[in-house]
């Protein structure tokens, strides 16, 4: 174990896998000479050379599409999107190609590739640069979607993604890059996809989340414990596709109350799937409808005060918990 930032955990995962397997390469805009806008790839061009650390033109469709082709021919490309907002430009390559070529070829090709990059709001980047894309991608069969909420998971899930045989959308939280946590040293430490975990035990209410909202939920849980003597169980989904709701459902059978937390817009967002699926499985156990805590249903404004109003905060989780406990 060592203390690592979420950023370094991602970086370590890539470098360990590049050291391990010459077929792993990385590509993206300004990841080489410029050393990465978030410095995740700093030093990597020098270490691995320009054939394995490819600076691309501003061409997200080109990046994603060529990665599919590389993957079909045995490479394991990791594409860095400067931010995931720009990956929308590559939506067709991702959703119509990466996600489907295994299927429509009748299984003749593997597509081991990762598209990774930061997402989320919080530093006044306004409407085109502050989005989160879990539900956008997780709707589509043929891709996998990870959204780690801790440094250890960032590393372990990314390593699983790189070693896998399928396209993975790896959604990093820009706001968590600086966050530190214990990360196993074992170079073969990986975290499997589709295995949610109990991030905090509790008896009174179940909070289901992932990525940065996991951290916010954990903080809310601490405050709930201190201020309201409510012990929340917090479930970390880790991956949205495959989606493992078993631990959440089990928890709900115990707590009878549930809050799902996501950063992005409520309508047709990830929390809807979480709420609907948990309700389907544990309807008779629920004493209240699953509450959703989400961002406001507007494009992200620039002004600081408006941005704060547009994004979910600890207080919202606390209020939602109180509501499902009929304490408000």
């Amino acid at each position, binding site marked *: 174990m060592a203390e690592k930032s979420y950023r370094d955990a991602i970086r370590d995962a890539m470098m360990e896998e590049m050291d391990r397997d010459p077929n792993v390469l990385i590509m993206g805009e300004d990841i080489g000479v410029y050393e990465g806008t978030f410095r995740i790839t700093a030093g990597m061009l020098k270490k691995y050379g320009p054939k394995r650390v490819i600076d691309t033109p501003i061409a997200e469709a080109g990046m994603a599409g060529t990665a599919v082709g*590389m993957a079909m021919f045995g490479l394991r490309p990791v594409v860095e999107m400067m931010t995931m907002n720009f990956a929308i430009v590559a939506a067709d390559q991702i959703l119509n190609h990466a996600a489907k070529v295994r299927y429509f070829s009748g299984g003749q090709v593997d597509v081991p590739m990762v598209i990774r990059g930061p997402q989320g709001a919080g530093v006044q980047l306004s409407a085109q640069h502050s989005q989160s894309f879990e539900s956008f991608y997780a709707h589509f*069969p043929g891709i996998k979607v990870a959204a780690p909420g801790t440094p250890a998971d960032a590393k372990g899930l990314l390593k699983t993604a790189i070693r896998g045989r399928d396209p993975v959308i790896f959604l990093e939280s820009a706001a968590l890059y600086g966050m530190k946590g214990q990360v196993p040293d074992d170079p073969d430490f990986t975290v499997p996809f589709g295995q949610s975990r109990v991030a905090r035990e509790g008896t009174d209410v179940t909070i289901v989340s992932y990525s940065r909202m996991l951290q916010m939920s954990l903080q809310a849980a601490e405050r709930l414990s201190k201020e309201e003597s409510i012990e929340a169980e917090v479930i970390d989904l880790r991956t949205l596709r495959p989606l493992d709701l078993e631990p959440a459902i089990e928890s709900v059978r115990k707590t009878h109350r549930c809050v799902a937390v996501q950063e992005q817009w409520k309508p047709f967002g990830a929390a809807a799937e979480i709420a609907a699926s948990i309700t389907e499985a544990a309807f008779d156990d629920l004493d209240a409808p699953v509450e959703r805590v989400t961002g406001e249903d507007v494009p992200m404004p620039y002004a600081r005060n408006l941005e704060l109003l547009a994004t979910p905060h600890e207080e919202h989780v606390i209020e939602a918990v109180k509501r499902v406990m009929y304490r408000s």
Partner: protein
Amino acid sequence: MARQKQEASATLDQAACAPEWTDILRQMILIRRFEEATEREFRRGKIGGYLHVYSGQEAVVSGVISALGKDDAVFTGYRDHAHALALGADPKRVMAELFGKAAGVSKGKGGSMHLFDVEHGFYGGYGIVGGHVTLAAGAAYALRYRGTDRIVVCYFGDGAMNIGSFHEAMNMAGLWGKDGMCPILFIIENNGYAMGTSVERHSALTDLAARVRAYNIQAEKADGQDLFAIRGVADRAVRQVRESGKPYCIEAVTYRFSGHGAADILQPYRSKDEVEEHKHRDPIVILRTRLSEMCGLGDNDVKKMEDEAAQRVAEAVKFAEESPAPEPDELYRDVVAE
């Protein structure tokens, strides 16, 4: 007909009457008969979805693919039956795919637009116009990265050149080519139309090869109806791509005799006369005439080829018809790796 190894590929003047040419004619006839059969089977309701046939353009496939080595890889769009057959895919399994049967080359899951036969170097078969071009460029990078001397051939239509991802792919191919990292041969199947929109109406600059040069990629036009012409350019291009690791582009000027797809009956965008006129430059007739004039190919030989093609196609249809449909649990297979 098996693909030639690059080393073996005869140059035109050396061996103008080599058996290879007869094999290619045989292949082109097979493709034409095959396509005619698919149109029939579509009308009989045996083939579903969209159906885009290659009739009229055969030399563009046979001329280039016969110039390849056996390990090279081919990508194309949805008008893909000819490519699969020329690469050596079993007509039975191709037809079975069109019938949606388990024995199909893509297990019946892809259909006409998504033929794949990786064993024979065929990497599909894609339905989003131009969408496969980025994939093919990446494949070329991978082949060079892994130290092989395999190359990629990527076919696309004139209309595909207007989509954004095409542009991104070409620029990246041009850039990678500078380091010898993109051994890819682009083939523009310029058949004059994107569905019902003529090149003049969809491309601001109608010189398509010139458009490709804007990516620092060498590009030349070739007569796509003349097997010898296209093969001559292809031999040179394949050699150059393999040696240099740089992209190259051939604009094959051709024509499609059938409608865009099986539903394109009225064809309000072109006249019957125009089609008839182009039929005078049928690539099969051109090659046949050439071989009979230069190499003494007889009517009997051609008749034999025709009969053989008819028989192989009939067998393919029979095979496809009698094959079982996919098992229900195939539905859930191949979504992700198991």
